[in-house]
């Protein structure tokens, strides 16, 4: 598990072409824009996705959120890993 996690933390996520995070000023909510649909990003997803810029690794994103929310690192790690994997499955994020 540790080895897999370390390797994965070096992954750099980025939005696939045709998908992005967008703040909707009218509804005051974050949305993931994707082909044929826009879906609501919940508070956790929005925090994570705002840090996705194609340069930060998952590990750096986890570090930043750990600091911002003064939360245990493994709790944040779990959130970040499961959400990015889910969005990669939906072809929203690419993990390189």
């Amino acid at each position, binding site marked *: 598990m540790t080895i897999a996690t370390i390797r994965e933390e070096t992954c750099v996520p980025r939005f*696939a*072409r*045709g*998908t*992005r995070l*967008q703040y*909707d*000023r*009218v*509804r005051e909510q974050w*949305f993931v*824009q994707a*082909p*044929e*649909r*826009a879906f609501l990003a919940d508070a956790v997803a929005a925090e994570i996705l705002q840090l996705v810029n194609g340069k930060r690794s998952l590990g750096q994103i986890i570090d930043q959120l750990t600091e911002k929310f003064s939360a245990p690192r493994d709790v944040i790690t779990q959130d970040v890993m499961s959400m990015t994997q889910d969005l*990669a*499955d*939906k*072809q929203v994020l690419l993990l390189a």
Partner: protein
Amino acid sequence: MTVPGAPKALPPMSLLAELTHRCPLQCPYCSNPLRLDPRAGELDTATWMRVLDEAAAMGILQVHFSGGEPMARPDLADLVRHAVSLGLYTNLITSGVLLTRDSLKNLSESGLDHIQLSFQDADAQEGERIGGMAGAQAKKLEAARLIVEDGLPLTLNFVIHRQNAERVPAMLELAEQLGARRVEIAHTQYYGWGLLNRDALLPDRAQLDATEQAVAAARTRFGNRIAIDFVTPDYYAERPKPCMGGWGQRFLNISPSGKVLPCHAAETIPGLTFPTVTEDSLEAIWQDSPLFNLFRGTGWMPEPCQSCAFKEDDWGGCRCQALALAGQASATDPVCHRAPAHQRIEQAIAARPATPPEFRYRRYNNAP
């Protein structure tokens, strides 16, 4: 029409911008109205730009440029660029037959987010017969190649009916070969041209089952690589679909001449006044026009919908289908097994001829 103090309707999510009804193809199931808008009545570029401004300001998130063939409009890339600058997600719905390397480059550089490319069949000869355009298939294949080469995400769209249903497996293979990210296998909806051609299009139950199996098998094979959107045919369903996600709830449709509609077939409903973008703002039309409030929510519903547990799932189905089959736009969609007019659906299936009749192609002045 809005009651003072009544809660405002939530803003729509999407705008379907039908830029033109002109199209080199003539699909017999086309979702355009039987009476097509002529070129002379089309909105000009400046008006579409203003409409996009209003759409973004009211909270619309996605704009689908459609038609007819939207690439027949020389200002398409300018409209895309403007929509992108407003933060709108831009999708192009095209037949691909007018797409060239240069026009695609122009669209791509304008910031277009996604393309949905339609095919009439996986088989070239059949596809060209169904779409009524010789040479179309080679152009579509080339369009797909150029789109994927550019890196734009591509969705292939296939409309399914009795004359191409057996080739759904080949369609799914084609999507895979061409590098599509999504594929829509959408059974025909029966209003407008589709209703006119219903006997030539409506599949039987066995054909439907085979398409479902083909889609299930491909889903297993594709995994997360390619998403498949499968649209079932209403006629064999137990309950209707939530047409447009509910009347006046999620979608706005603007016709080439600027009529603002809750769905693309709404013009078939008689006795209504259709607001236009040249007379009023999108926001005022969405919130206050009698048209958008007519079937919004559940207050208008007759029984059995009114006391049904599903009324906020399917919103009573499609108003245009209710009109076409039950004779009244406010009736329960006859597709529903509980609808008083459900026997119209059973009759249509029973009366389906063994051999499909000739198509009545979608052309200017080709409707009764």
